[in-house]
């Protein structure tokens, strides 16, 4: 990929006009890419830079133009009081921020863990041949198709403390001794969010894993069957290693998605400190508390954390995104 060459097939087809053709194609490619690049620069690149810039200023929502550069003040600053004690201020010593970081990381870890395990289970079921497989596949697409806000509302109703069907079901089955205010209690709010998120996104995970499962050649299992390998051992020795690349990609997609979670929590458990994530806190500061610069600092840190985790994961997991080298 270091030299500019034409696709190998076309080179073979027209060896004599190779260089001219190659030049023409590369020029065309540049031209074709420009509109997309401009669009991405305007909607992603520039706003990202501006957000980072705002985090080093004293910008307020009502007066963005008058923003003055103040350096790292939003992140960390200290003042020495007359009594000689030092006061530390800023995002890096803000307990609300670290609470949000902890909530986000906890949520991301638990949701992706459960989704991977349950997704694997559903994928294995769908990979088996049985009557009614089409119905199951259609059924699991429904949670995926439902908008997050709608599912947050639906589950909010089902988890309602007084009239919710889940409390009713739990009491009937003897699992709950009394009605639980799922979304309002600090102890259960995170559980409620996790339940809804796992319900909604396990299908996506299952479909990605299923695609990986279907690429495993059947005769490996036939050979294992003949050798009398136990199905459980088959799973750990054959299925899991072979499906690992698909699983890794599915996990990173979901992890990145989970780390930026906003809408579900905003609607399902508003104002609950035990579920407030980085995104929710950042938006609150940006637009509700009129701390635009402080909110920008939060979104910048969020971006940095996610970028670092992604790089780390790709590096450690040796995930290959650029599959084709055609």
């Amino acid at each position, binding site marked *: 990929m270091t030299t*500019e060459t034409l*696709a190998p097939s*076309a080179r073979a*087809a027209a060896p004599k006009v190779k260089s001219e053709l190659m030049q*023409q194609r590369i020029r*065309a490619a*540049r031209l074709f*890419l420009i*509109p*997309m690049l401009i*669009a*991405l620069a305007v*909607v992603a690149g520039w706003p*990202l830079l501006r*957000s980072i810039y705002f985090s080093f200023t004293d910008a307020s929502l009502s007066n*963005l133009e008058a923003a003055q550069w103040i350096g790292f003040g939003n992140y960390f600053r200290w003042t020495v009081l007359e009594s000689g004690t030092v006061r530390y201020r800023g995002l890096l010593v803000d307990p609300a921020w670290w609470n949000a970081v902890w909530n986000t990381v906890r949520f991301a870890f638990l949701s992706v863990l459960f989704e991977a395990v349950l997704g694997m289970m*559903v994928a294995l*079921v769908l990979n088996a041949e049985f009557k009614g497989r089409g119905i*199951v*596949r259609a*059924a699991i*697409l*429904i949670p995926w*198709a439902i*908008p*997050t*806000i*709608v599912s947050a*509302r*639906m*589950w909010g109703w*089902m988890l309602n403390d007084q009239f919710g*069907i889940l409390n009713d079901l739990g009491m009937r089955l003897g699992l709950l001794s009394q009605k639980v205010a799922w979304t309002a209690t600090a102890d259960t709010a995170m559980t409620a969010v996790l339940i809804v998120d796992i*319900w909604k996104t396990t299908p996506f995970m299952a*479909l*990605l894993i299923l*695609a*990986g499962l279907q690429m495993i050649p059947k005769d490996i299992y036939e050979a294992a069957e003949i050798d009398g390998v136990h199905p459980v051992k088959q799973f750990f020795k054959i299925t899991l290693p072979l499906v690992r690349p698909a699983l890794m*990609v*599915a996990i990173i*997609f979901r992890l*990145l*998605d989970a780390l930026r979670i906003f809408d579900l929590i*905003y609607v399902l458990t508003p104002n609950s400190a035990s579920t407030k994530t*980085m*995104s929710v806190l*950042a938006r609150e500061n*940006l637009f509700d508390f009129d701390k635009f610069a402080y*909110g920008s600092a939060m*979104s*910048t840190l*969020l*971006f940095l954390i*996610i*970028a670092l985790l992604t790089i780390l994961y790709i590096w450690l997991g040796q995930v290959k*995104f*650029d*599959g*084709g080298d*055609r």
Partner: protein
Amino acid sequence: MGATFDLWKATKWVLFYLLVAVIVVVSVFPFYYAILTSFKTGTALFQVNYWPTSFSLDNYWNVLNSGSFPRNLLNSIFVSSVTVILALFLAITASFALARVRFRGRGLLLLTILGISMFPQMAVLAGLFEVIRALGIYNTPWALIFSYTIFTLPFTVWVLTTFMRDLPVEIEEAAIVDGASPWVIITRVFMPLMWPALVTTGILAFIGAWNEFLFALTFTSNNDTRTVPVAIALLSGSTQYEIPWGNIMAASVIVTVPLVILVLVFQRKIVSGLTAGGVKG
């Protein structure tokens, strides 16, 4: 020996189908329950029922005839459609270049595009807000169409690139021998072959735009410009403690049914589109 073997087999069969039943019930039940609730009014709403007991269209009538919900629906349809058309238009040529031409930095460019589609929208919110205000499109559908490009464009480029990479090279060779320019190759040779991929990608991008919440919440400020997800999230009763669950469920069913139908009709294509974005990448 034979009898016990059959018993074991039967147990396995029962357990397997039990698992299948659990998967189906858990997947479908919340939506079923939302539909059930949407047909209930008055005190019936507050009685827990597992089967349909009453049938009333009052909630649907309320949602569609009062307030701004019909307007919100139109907003959502307009914003999502224009966003998708714009993204597909920009993505077709770009993905041709990325899938079919080798040039320096292609791998890096692909990785950047994937990165943009995955990075947190919160990170650009402050900057986007400034740009949208500067363009004078705050609180209009254009603010949403503009901002939605950030996730629909990378996604469509990524999926179309994987699709286009899989098209047979022979077709392109023949066209090149006939002296076709890259533009002619795209419009005359690839486009007819790409229709299924375009439809799939378009539907997936449409669903993404239809469901988007953060930008819609931030860049619109009154009932007439909001999209459906924001309208449903902010739907409230006359007092803080009086949440109109019946109306919320009716609105939820209205926005979800078209999506569910769309997804079930295009099931196979959507699954292949999703996995093309992920696994094959």
